């Protein structure tokens, strides 16, 4: 396959940045999108140019490290996958592909396509946990029965990989799908109920501090989420938040 890549290059956070064209040839349909970028980078290095910086690690769709806005879509045109799982068979010979970073005020660019998503971590520091001592002296696990349906729903929420596609794709750069998933995971479990009030208040507060926007129920986040995290989690977070606010 012969392609024209239009890639966002930005030396560092201070640099203005811009799109640079890279023609590329010899791309196989069974390459992953990131392997295609590896090929490009190898060519750039051999030509004495600087390779394109991009985030990636596990390359099997689970670590959440890879990002990329591809032709205007977070993680590209395929549904339910991360960029590392996107394969070149989704493109046609001769295609032009725009590759940009996940853009959001709360995700500042570090270099080229790499952004800083530590705002997600800080939201977690604010309450994304159950306050249990890690001594191993807790009660036997089976003394906390959990309704299978709740356990499954909690798992579905917990399957969020924290990639940030929801933020990148949202016109308001809202993080509510991410935060909703985190709140839901614990809210659905008996273990998480005890400190549910403070958790949702603290996490939402931090989310606002980080500069994420609000949800306007457009639903783009759900569509672009590689893990199928549903809008139901945002609704649950809103209910939890409302209940907590009334209590507080």
């Amino acid at each position: 396959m012969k392609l024209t890549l239009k890639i966002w290059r930005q030396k560092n956070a201070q640099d203005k940045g811009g799109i640079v064209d890279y023609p590329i040839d010899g791309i196989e349909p069974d390459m992953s999108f990131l392997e295609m970028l590896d090929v490009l980078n190898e060519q750039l290095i051999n030509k004495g140019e600087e390779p394109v910086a991009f985030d990636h690690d596990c390359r099997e769709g689970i670590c959440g490290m890879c990002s990329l806005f591809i032709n205007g879509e977070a993680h590209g045109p395929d549904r339910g996958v991360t960029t590392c799982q996107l394969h070149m068979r989704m493109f046609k010979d001769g295609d032009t592909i725009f590759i940009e970073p996940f853009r959001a005020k709360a995700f500042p660019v570090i270099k080229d396509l790499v952004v800083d998503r530590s705002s997600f971590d800080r939201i977690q520091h604010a309450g994304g946990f159950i306050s249990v001592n890690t001594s191993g002296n807790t009660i036997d696990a089976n003394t906390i029965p959990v309704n299978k349906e709740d356990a499954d729903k909690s798992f579905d929420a917990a399957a969020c990989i924290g990639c940030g596609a929801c933020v990148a794709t949202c016109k308001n750069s809202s993080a509510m799908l991410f935060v909703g998933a985190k709140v839901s995971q614990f809210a659905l479990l008996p273990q998480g109920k005890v400190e549910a009030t403070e958790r949702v208040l603290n996490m939402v507060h931090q989310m606002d501090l980080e500069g994420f926007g609000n949800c306007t129920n457009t639903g783009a986040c759900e569509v672009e989420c590689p893990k199928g995290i549903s809008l139901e989690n945002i609704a649950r977070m809103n209910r939890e938040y409302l209940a907590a606010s009334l209590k507080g």
Partner: protein
Amino acid sequence: MALDSKIPHGPISDKWTNYKDHINLVNPANKRNLDIIIVGTGLAGGSAAATLAELGYNVKAFCFQDSPRRAHSIAAQGGINAAKNYKGDGDSVYRLFYDTVKGGDYRAREANVHRLAEVSANIIDQCVAQGVPLAREYGGLLDNRSFGGTLVSRTFYAQGQTGQQLLLGAYSAMNRQIGRGKVKMYNRHEMLDIVIVDGKARGIIARNLVTGEIERHSAHAVVVGSGGYGNVFFLSTNAMGSNATAAWKIHKKGAFFANPCYTQIHPTCIPVSGDHQSKLTLMSESLRNDGRIWVPAKLEDAQAIREGKKKATDLSEAERDYFLERRYPAFGNLVPRDVASRAAKERCDAGFGVNKTGEAVYLDFAAAIQRYGTEEAYVKGLDANDKALVIKLGTAIVKSKYGNLFQMYLKIVDEDPYVTPMMIYPAVHYTMGGTWVDYNLMTTIPGCFSIGESNFSDHGANRLGASALMQGLADGYFVLPYTIGDYLAPDIKMGPISTDLPEFVEAEKAVKDQIDRFINNKGTHSVDYFHKKLGKIMWDKVGMARNAKGLTEAIEEIAALREEFYKDVKVPGSANEFNQELEKATRVADFLELGELFAKDALHRNESCGGHFREEYQTEEGEALRDDENFAYVAAWEYKGKPSDAVLHKEPLVYENIKLVQRSYK
């Protein structure tokens, strides 16, 4: 230096309890005066950071990823073992202990493995209390499944994402401590050297990967939980960033490196498709619960399939060779990973492989879909003779068990595994070798600990499925928090350690010199060019099967490649910026040394055991032939300037509770 494993005296089942009763403790008020550095924040490092902070120590944690939540533990799929006997199928601490020692081909330390089995049940309790959504039965209690190498159902799981859920559990425990200010987290930082003062580990030199700044960090103890070194093969199931640098740097400063040649080759990975491939993707071992592994029984059928003239579904049951079920009737498709991997390679080497390159076997779910579908039809009162209905019902059940794995396969291979059997082949997965540690998990450098995959201790020559997660969390949550206290007790009056000490200055200079050398090298080839070359030598000559000739060649070739690397590597960009090529260069430099020691260790071990198969040492039936008389020891290597000069130290393995016998899964 003689190796002292510090195994406590007394009966095996009492050792850990007696040990805990007699160690030195640090008063909670004094813990505040002690700093601990943790390098790596996966299951082992993350759980250790959370627990040590909970106890009151000041923890500084480092990871090269942008968040601890991305550590490669997150990719573990199948499950975590625990001796809880919830199923009443006869499981016990002893049985888990026994299976692990046997599964490791009798090359693990009994006392450590027993402790692991003892604390395994606590891990599940702890994780559930933290809100980890493990799979449940309809009654609300925890579910289990079975895994290779065992005859009981002791594996707890969260769909095919158990590692993710357990890691997020440890990460949330860490977040709680970060929020309290007890853990100071350094994301996008890489440890590039350890600092030793008066013979003790007192700090590290780290590079801020965003700014390029070289930083000094001091502490009263340093814990390395940096994972395994499977990426020495270039292609492996490890994440792209997984590296050996922290483990290798402590080795160069005095920590012995044990059993480097023990590498687990995982039997069920998606096969290599081309030269451009950057990594291999694992398909969970849990699939072997329902998938049947086979190749065509006749060579001409295998050839026709490779040429695209026939499809898997064209062959009748009688025309297939279910080679694991044939060779190992008792365990069948659930034999341990080393056995399953070698059996697949044997069939492919004999010409029965089913993909273009001849390096793949089938993992087939048709029988499971049929079985589940029929049962479901009965349950729902539907017609069990309606073939299409049965397949539909059965597919839905298989989907609920392994959906994400099937989707992953579909995306990579572009074939629907519900319709055609998956193609799989063994790939490098987990490394059982690693830093040598004593019973306290301390390396041969006082004050430097190594936990999880980065140490060598619990899996012997082979790791049973679902036991990596178990060891990572056991070390971090329940073992290190005791043993490190015993070490730190005399340090309570020490006060903070200055980073102005000459040892810090010197270590920092060495790190900067190495980086400058890379940046200023006017080479012609990229880092990956060398990494791929190293990987090819490793796979061809130090891979699933090895022999003396190949290993001897590999040792020379790796040394030569290392020399070429330093002469000819090209690292673009500068040192003082975000520079991913520079990161790779420092890691590959270490792999180029480790690879040589790996081959050297494999060459000296004149036996076959677990993940180390020497072609010269096999039974008539092609099974691994161990030599307990001469090799029942841990091979711990001491660094002496270069890998070829490394000096071998032996820790004899004493089996008081388990009799050494030939492993049999027939």
